[in-house]
């Protein structure tokens, strides 16, 4: 018996009991038992970020982000309500119009957490006006490509590079709609940074922003991650292989 069930503590998620350990966030505990709470910026094994807002749940009647809210024994958590699903669809539409998400030519199409989450929420169209940002693409690195126009500022590469690789290659800089990912190198270019294609940060981007070169379109249509799995299937969400649940 694991230490989670041994603790005997649990809360209710959409009416079903979820075992928890003291110190768990709602999302951590739900993810451990394979219960899906929509998320983009959260990854098991990394601290929470709280930027995508997709994991908003009603916690004892109050809206909170499940990735940052500590679970409490006996708490009543609602996740899959029509109102919350509609709010999540709006958040997804905001992310889509904010960048240039032209899936038909994106090498991450079918393997993209943003896209799969939008499918899950039956997002048919963008609803808002397109921003059509014009941010430079950084193709300087021999093995990696960085397209800022697809970046959703989840900060996963920032945290993975700092905490898992010990390199601190990335940071998020700027304010408001000018907020953007920056690269820690004298020139600001990926080629002059310490990033290697084998870094955990190199494989963690949930969208088509940070991608390895020369391996695009290698999975036949029908064999891509989200052709085979729905995003709400247990543990189908993370781009990179999950790190240890108990790390950080």
């Amino acid at each position: 018996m694991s230490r989670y069930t041994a603790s005997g503590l649990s809360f209710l998620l959409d009416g079903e009991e979820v075992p928890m350990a003291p110190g768990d966030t709602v999302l951590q505990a739900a993810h451990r038992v394979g219960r899906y709470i929509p998320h983009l910026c959260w990854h098991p094994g990394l601290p929470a970020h709280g930027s995508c807002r997709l994991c908003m749940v009603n916690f004892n009647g109050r809206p909170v982000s499940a990735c940052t809210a500590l679970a409490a024994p006996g708490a009543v958590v609602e996740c899959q309500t029509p109102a919350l699903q509609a709010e999540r669809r709006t958040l997804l539409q905001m992310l889509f119009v904010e960048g240039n998400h032209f899936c038909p030519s994106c090498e991450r199409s079918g393997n993209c957490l943003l896209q799969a989450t939008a499918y899950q929420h039956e997002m048919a169209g963008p609803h808002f006006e397109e921003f059509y940002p014009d941010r430079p693409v950084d193709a300087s690195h021999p093995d990696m490509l960085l397209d800022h126009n697809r970046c959703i500022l989840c900060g996963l590469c920032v945290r993975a590079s700092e905490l898992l690789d010990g390199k601190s290659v990335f940071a998020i800089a700027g304010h408001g709609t000018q907020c953007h990912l920056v690269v820690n190198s004298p020139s600001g270019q990926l080629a002059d940074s310490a990033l290697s294609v084998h870094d955990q940060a190199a494989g963690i981007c949930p969208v088509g922003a940070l991608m390895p070169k020369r391996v695009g379109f290698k999975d036949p249509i029908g064999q891509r991650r989200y052709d085979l799995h729905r995003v709400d299937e247990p543990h189908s969400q993370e781009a990179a292989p999950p790190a240890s649940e108990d790390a950080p």
Partner: protein
Amino acid sequence: MNDAAPYPAPPARKLRVATTSLAGCFGCHMSLLDIDERLLTLIEHVEFDRSPLTDLKSVGPCDLGLIEGGLCNAENIEVLQAFRAQCKVLVAVGACAINGGLPAQRNRLDIGDVLREVYVHRPGTREDAQVPSDPELPLPLNQVRPIHEVVLIDYELPGCPPSADTFWAFFTDLLAGRTPRLAHGQIHYD
């Protein structure tokens, strides 16, 4: 897709449907034709107004308008507004109509530079080559835009192109009087 469900009996009055391609590639129309022999069932229930598949030159009063492609020039806007004026229900079909699509990748470039690059500076053009300027030609917009930014859109059929089964599910719902709703596997953007 639901092959087994009985298709409703042909109505007294057929649904009138117009289609057009703006800054499209005609791929969405091809995908519509991909419903194959189901077209024969479809035309028992609908008749086509202005469409690349008919010879009608202007759009008349319609129940349904299907728009493929985004907006890239002045003529696209005129056609779109005519469709909106004539169609009770207007549908954005495909990635281009919905978010501008791949043609919108030109939005980061200056349209004058693009035209000069293609018509004047490209290797192989004549010494005196000019950007075409005949008034008969529609002027390009400075950016490609999705159609919902200019007229109200009632439904979207995402995909590049939407699959034939997505078209069929949409028609089946509409003809049965249901609000069209795409199931999980019928929504894709690529």
